[in-house]
């Protein structure tokens, strides 16, 4: 199963379209149960996702059902990197992680060698199988994966933002044996929310977003399935991270995942690629709490 479960919703009320707020423990349990049944084996988390790590530790009680990818907070120094990793292990109640990523690639740019040594140490001590970085910028990724051998990166990939699917980056990843986890498939929910229910800010992007819904209608598929199809059929992507606030949402996503099978052959999904930073980069959006 190529889907991985994101856990930011377990610790904070995240996403401009998430109005349910933080997920309660009982709901979390039922989401995780469904995920395991569906064959999802990886949970994606981070120290800065509120209390997500702690709650995952509480609910899963150190069971071996899932592997964890976690991210150490931005601003981490070589001196406290291992302390941070230790904190995550403790909160998640496990002895070992699948991967530790730097949440902010800027940290590697600023204090490269020392911080990188710390990551290597963690991997040598087998606190994690893999080390890597979470990226926003494809240019930065291209530079850093060549400079610092790493095992895994995470990056935003969706119908609008296809920077990380460029031929150059794909071959750099393959050549350096770096796996990639795709996040932000639904662009924080924006891509799967009907246009009339989106915050006003997105009104100006009607011409970009509308064709999506038109194509979905024309081929009678869900927009969500189209979003997932892009990553489902991309061979460089190892896992596709999706988040949800309820068991029902995960059911929906799992259905869409099935629907996505074979869609790339029928639909030209690359056509949606858009380079308007103000639309594709959530960091460029104004404050949009709904």
């Amino acid at each position, binding site marked *: 199963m190529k889907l991985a479960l994101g856990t930011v919703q377990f610790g904070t009320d995240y996403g401009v379209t998430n109005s349910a707020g933080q997920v309660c423990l009982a709901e979390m349990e039922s989401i995780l149960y469904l995920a395991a049944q569906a064959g999802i084996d990886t949970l994606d988390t981070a120290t800065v996702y509120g209390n997500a790590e702690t709650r995952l530790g509480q609910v899963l009680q150190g069971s071996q059902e899932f592997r964890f990818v976690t991210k150490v907070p931005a601003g981490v120094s*070589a001196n406290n990197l291992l302390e941070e990793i230790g904190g995550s292990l403790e909160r998640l109640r496990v002895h070992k992680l699948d991967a530790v990523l730097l949440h902010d690639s800027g940290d590697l740019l600023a204090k490269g060698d020392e911080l990188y040594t710390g990551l290597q140490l963690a991997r040598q001590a*087998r*606190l994690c199988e893999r080390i890597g970085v979470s990226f926003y910028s494809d240019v930065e990724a291209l530079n850093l994966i060549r400079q610092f051998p790493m095992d895994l990166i995470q990056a935003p990939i969706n119908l609008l933002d296809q920077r990380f699917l460029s031929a150059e980056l794909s071959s750099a990843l393959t050549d350096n044996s770096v796996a990639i986890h795709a996040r932000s498939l639904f662009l924080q929910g924006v891509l799967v929310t009907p246009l009339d229910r989106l915050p006003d800010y997105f009104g100006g992007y009607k011409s970009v977003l509308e064709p999506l819904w038109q194509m979905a209608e024309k081929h009678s598929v869900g927009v969500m399935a189209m979003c997932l199809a892009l990553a489902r059929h991309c061979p460089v992507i190892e896992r596709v991270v999706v988040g949800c606030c309820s068991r029902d949402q995960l059911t929906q996503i799992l259905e869409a995942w099935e629907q996505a099978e074979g869609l790339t052959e029928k639909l030209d999904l690359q056509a949606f690629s858009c380079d308007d930073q103000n639309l594709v980069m959530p960091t460029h959006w104004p404050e949009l709490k709904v």
Partner: protein
Amino acid sequence: MIVAILQARLSSSRLPRKVLKPVLGKPMLELEIERIRRSRLIDKLVVATTTEPIDKSIELLCTRLEVDCFRGSLDNVLDRYYRSAVNSKADQVVRLTGDCPLIDPQIIDQVIMLHCETGSDYTSNVLPPTFPDGLDVEVMTFSALETSWKEARLPSEKEHVTSYIENHPQKFRISNVSAKSDFSNHRWTVDEVEDFELISHLFEALYPSNPEFSMEDVLHYLDSHPRVAQLNNGIQRNEGMQSSLQKDQSYLQREKADV
């Protein structure tokens, strides 16, 4: 309670981070711990590392392996040992070092047994050395360790846990375990890259068919593979000790100057 205290740190000067260097995909220290755990007489194993931030990785490795870990002074290893021993309520302390992954649990048990049978204060297999360098086992009573901790003044006696005992043989009842013949020309400790090459080679050759391989198995293998045995020829025994003896000289000179 018989507590083995395994000293390990990452900031070694000659081969930095050696204890985490992977052999057969595992950190060297993990393989050593695996072997120590086969001792039948050790009640508890504690890894004594330093409070340096980098050694947090050793602490976390211990958590993963479910081994106790104590963090103390970087340079005053005697103090680190003493506090580890107090902390773990040790009656007898077995001193082991993290750069000796071939340590043999049977030899550990031999030394412990002689120590307990003779009621010695300090029992080892290094006075004089007959075992390969890297299979050193030292067992001491808690009170011998405490006496050393209280009395030691020289830098070398603080940096090397048992130097005080060795320097004051009249104060302690000392016993020694000897090997059947003299193997002390063998060098199985890891200080230099060449040592690491030898150790990796031995693990790769012996571990897959028998993870519990003994000193005899290694000796036998080296007999039939003389070129492997030469991998780390020409490296001096105990260079670390020589550097702290130099520190002693300057300490003693300063002390004279103070008078």
